């Protein structure tokens, strides 16, 4: 892939990013940040690649730490986001749920 193709992708991705993320409401900004932490864990791919051609002890150590860091981002980020979003989707109105049910007949 040529550099200019990559720059094109970068610029378009920036516009998409601004467009999509500016629609996220303030209420969800903390989960958004932890989710972007998780997405940032994509750098683990770089770790997987460089450890593949590592050929001295220092590179082994660097690569392994990079993979561990990336995995912390991915696993921790998605899990904690899921935990937080669970709090938002919780319906604290059991009465409303019961009224919706078919069993609520006279």
């Amino acid at each position, binding site marked *: *892939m040529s550099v200019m193709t*990559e720059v094109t*992708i970068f610029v378009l*991705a*920036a516009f998409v*990013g*601004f467009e999509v*993320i500016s629609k*996220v*409401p*303030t*209420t*969800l*900004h*903390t*989960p*958004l*940040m932890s*989710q972007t932490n*998780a*997405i*940032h*864990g*994509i750098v*683990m*791919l*770089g770790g*997987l*690649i*460089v*450890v*593949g*051609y590592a050929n001295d002890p220092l590179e*082994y150590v660097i*690569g*392994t*730490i*990079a*993979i*561990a*860091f*990336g*995995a*912390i981002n*991915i*696993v*921790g*980020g*998605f*899990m*904690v986001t*899921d935990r*937080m*979003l669970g*709090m*938002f*989707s*919780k319906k*604290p*109105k059991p009465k409303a749920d019961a009224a919706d049910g078919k069993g609520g007949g006279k």
Partner: protein
Amino acid sequence: MSLLAVLEPGGSAATALYIVAFSLFILGVRQGTHPTTAKRGNMIAAVGMAVAVITTLLLDGIGNWGLIALGLGIGTAVGVTASIRVQMTEMPQMVALYNGVGGGAVALIAWSELRHGISGIDAGEIASIPLEELIPTLFAAVVGSVSFWGSNIAFAKLQDLIPTKPLSVPGQQVINAVLLIGILAACVDIAVNNGDPSQAIFIAILLAAALLGNLVVLPIGGADMPVVISLLNAFTGLSAAAAGFALHNVALIVAGTLVGSSGTILTMEMATAMNRSVANVLFAGFGGAPAGGTGGTTEERPHVSIGAQDAAIKLAYADSVVIVPGYGLAVAQAQHAIKEVADELEKRGVTVNYAIHPVAGRMPGHMNVLLAEADVPYEQLKEMEEINPEMPRTDVAVIVGANDVTNPAAKNDPDSPIAGMPIIEVSEAQQVIVIKRSLSPGFAGIDNDLFYEPNTSMLFDDAKKAAADIAAEIQNL
């Protein structure tokens, strides 16, 4: 060495799978625009990540499986443990730490890339790195290192491991500028001597960037943390995108850019909410106003002090109540007690809403998460622009652990340090109850005129205890 080696790196199949992965990231974030779909969106993004990781593991040239398993094992164990154990009040620290490890990973990958470029795949052979890979590699190294160390300092401040008040050394700006110029010069040196660049210079760049990260974040006060965390989030995202350029990986470029956009938007929103520029936050050391020194000289001004019972009566006989929570609420862990007060009031037919200032808490949206944890329905969480027009029709505004964001001086006094900062206009409400330990000033280090207004009553107590007392008193009415 390659066990799987099914996919050609940079080949059509691998690229197609990466495109699937980043599309899922974008879809996932898009679903995050509403509380009811956000959880599914997070799942979609996680599936995208699984696709990206599996694709990479299938690439030809992936090896050292023992190390991969080790890294994955350690990272997963730490990630799972942390995400289960973390308290919602500690989310800012956790995000700071995640920003940090993300930036650290990028810096390490850049280092490895450069070493690889120097030694070549077969040791001994010197291969020069094309400039279009070298520049993003150096960028990733510098920004990754800055955000690793900056985030660690932010973490330490939020965790109270080091003082949250600004720490600065004399000539700070000059030192920062010298460091930055030195880093740039060293980068140019590596680029010029491409083919035989010095390892030592590269390590010096990493160290100088580390020092810069420390020096930039140390002088920033606790109240400015929402801006700093967002900015470091943007930095880590951009460094990941740069790593994507160096490795010619589209998934990294798009995902990194997405994170960079998100961090940038949040940084700008937070700075706007404090009516300050990002540069001002980074370089002015605002939270550093000697709060104790100047604050101590103010004479005692007349104010009304009430107890839990009076507060309960005011609230119980109101038609509409707005609760204004601030970071003090989080510190006192009072969110559940406040929810109890709201429940008691709603039983009596009082309308209860929550007014959330954009910088309430230590990171964007932090207060919303704390209240969601206490089962407050998100429909009751009102943003500042939404609630301010309602204030004149509000009977009682209750301020819990918030200070500067309610100070009318921001609107009325052009000479105030916080002049122009958007505030929650509680003084427009019929009555105001402020739950606070004392009359002490907030982070801005200035007196809050609100406390001395005739329709304001002060309830001096710990937020959690006060809220529990009020809830009990309302029950007894």
